[in-house]
């Protein structure tokens, strides 16, 4: 029982990271029709910016404060990088979806190679507050505290995005744009500003996922972005392209099934996720039509 609880919480923690990556991917795809391969690069940039800032903040003695400041810088770096990518690389290729995908592919290859060139391919250790390494007792088992952090962050982001989409003007424009972009443009609204915004939001969420993965694995390496991105793709497809709630549900399902199968078989969790995807495709291909739930 206690193992089951631990697996569940860890699965939810992993799912939280998938959701953070998938939410940006899903929003970007829903609004702009762009499959953003560079999303892993956003994650890498955010994670490395945090690590780099932290290593330069030796003057601050409190680890917690240092980590908090570094994280804020990391999130800002993710947002800035994503917004610049949208403005410089994606916007000139407006509506040419294949070219946009190709550019993000090139960008992801180049960014990861550059990070590897500057800081090497070895893992870089994250210095985090002591509380993250501690455990909480729940149902007779010790749960690592950083799992709560992952889950809390994902819930906050989901709630924040929901509120933002429901009750702000830009949220309204984005929702309308996902529904029918041509109509929004015809009504005289500059939907392109929403594109940059959605990229920036995706960049922040991806950077957050990068930082949390740094805490989870206690380090960050250049390949992290790509490996998380693939599971985020699976989450987005299972949850329905462009649907935020779908992504949230799918990331919980993927994270949990990965953990359970990994424990009760010999490390077949990753394969089970792909099998789950195949199953969803066979049973409900209609959910993949790109509709918003």
């Amino acid at each position, binding site marked *: 029982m206690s193992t089951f609880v631990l697996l569940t919480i860890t699965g939810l923690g992993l799912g939280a990271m998938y959701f953070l990556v998938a939410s940006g991917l899903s929003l970007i795809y829903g609004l702009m029709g762009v499959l953003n391969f560079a999303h892993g690069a956003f994650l890498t940039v955010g994670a490395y910016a945090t690590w780099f800032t932290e290593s330069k903040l030796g003057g601050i003695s409190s680890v917690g404060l240092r980590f908090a400041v570094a994280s804020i810088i990391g999130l800002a770096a993710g947002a800035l990088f994503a917004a610049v990518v949208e403005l410089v690389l994606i916007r000139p290729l407006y509506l040419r979806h294949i070219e946009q995908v*190709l550019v993000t592919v090139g960008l992801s*290859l180049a960014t990861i190679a550059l990070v590897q060139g500057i800081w090497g391919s070895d893992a870089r250790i994250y210095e985090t507050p002591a509380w993250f390494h501690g455990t909480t007792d729940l149902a007779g088992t010790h749960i690592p505290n950083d799992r709560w952090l992952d889950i809390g962050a994902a819930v906050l982001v989901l709630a924040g995005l929901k509120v933002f989409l429901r009750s702000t003007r830009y949220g309204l424009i984005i929702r309308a744009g996902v529904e029918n972009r041509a109509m929004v443009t015809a009504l005289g609204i500059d939907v392109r500003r929403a594109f940059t915004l959605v990229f920036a939001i995706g960049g922040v969420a991806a950077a957050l996922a990068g930082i949390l993965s740094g805490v989870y694995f206690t380090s960050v390496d250049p390949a992290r972005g790509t490996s998380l991105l693939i599971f985020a793709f699976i989450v987005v497809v299972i949850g329905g392209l462009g649907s935020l709630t779908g992504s949230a549900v799918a990331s919980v399902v993927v994270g949990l099934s990965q953990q359970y199968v990994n424990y009760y078989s010999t490390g077949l969790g990753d394969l089970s996720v792909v099998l789950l995807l195949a199953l969803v495709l066979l049973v409900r291909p209609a959910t993949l039509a*790109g509709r918003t739930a």
Partner: protein
Amino acid sequence: MTRRSLRFATPIAALVLLAFVPTFGFGLGSLLPGPLSSPGTLQLFAVCLIFAGVALSYDLLFGFTGLLSFGHALYFAAGAYVSDIAVTRWHWSFAAACLVTAAVGLVLPLVVGAISLRTSGIAFAMVTLAFAQAGAILVQKNPRSWTGGDEGLGYDYTRVPAAFVGVFNTRNLYWLALGYAACVVAIVAWAVRSSPGRVWQAIRENERRIEVLGLRTRSYKLLAFVLGSFLATGGGVVYMLTVNGADPSVTTPDFTLTLLVMVVLGGTGTLWGPVIGGALYWYANQRLIAVGGSHAIQSLPGVLRTPLSQPLFVLGTLFILAVFFLPGGLVGLGTRGRAGRAARGSTGPSVEEGA
């Protein structure tokens, strides 16, 4: 008549010239690791030719049929790993290994394609990526220590035809790779001119219209998927022989992205573009590693040295520039002036939005 014979004359002349490369004793300075006939150069050329063929097999899907697959690495890796495991772990004869690899090369894309083609456009890209990732994970997990995990699996040289083993026989491997590339070019050239081939190109242009005409587009797409994947599997076997085994780098999603870069750099939807793109990309990738470690680069200030010593950074940047400024790829550069082909403006087929 003359035009028709010309169409065949240039490729055949190129093929003959390439076939004689192992007899050329001269080198090209620092452009190559050694003289043309040296094993180092021939090995480099052999892998270039393999990637020329594999890139073309990918172009059959992406350029000619409009299927943006991110899982092509799976079939190439299947060719390399299945044949390697059959000879090295199961101690089969090479002929038997080739047979079972061919069977896998047909059945695997048939199953994966039948499932993935239930989706289209971007979702198809993601789903094929997921399947390829499953293959990469399987190789990584090293079940029954068949695949060798991270370290790859060197082949058992006693089970492979003696003509392909050893440094002195590099020229035979070169000819094998040349034969493979020539076969892929011939098969793809024939396939895209055949009746299903015309349907593929029509699907790329406007799939809904083909459906309205009463054709089952899914069967045609599956045919293209299986043919392209099978050709890639063949390339995997030749690759396994050329590099003396299989390594996990060919299973990764990055490898498929590399194929995509080769195709787009060379010229999407053309016969010769991917061939040139594949060969040039691999050549550039290998030589950039050598140049990156050279004195000229190492003596540059750090701001320039770090990016320039990373081949993937250079190639990724070139790729982005090509998408922006070189639609139609390298081949498009040559044909841009000609009338009638000016219409080939975009770099790729259009994928309809999922909505």
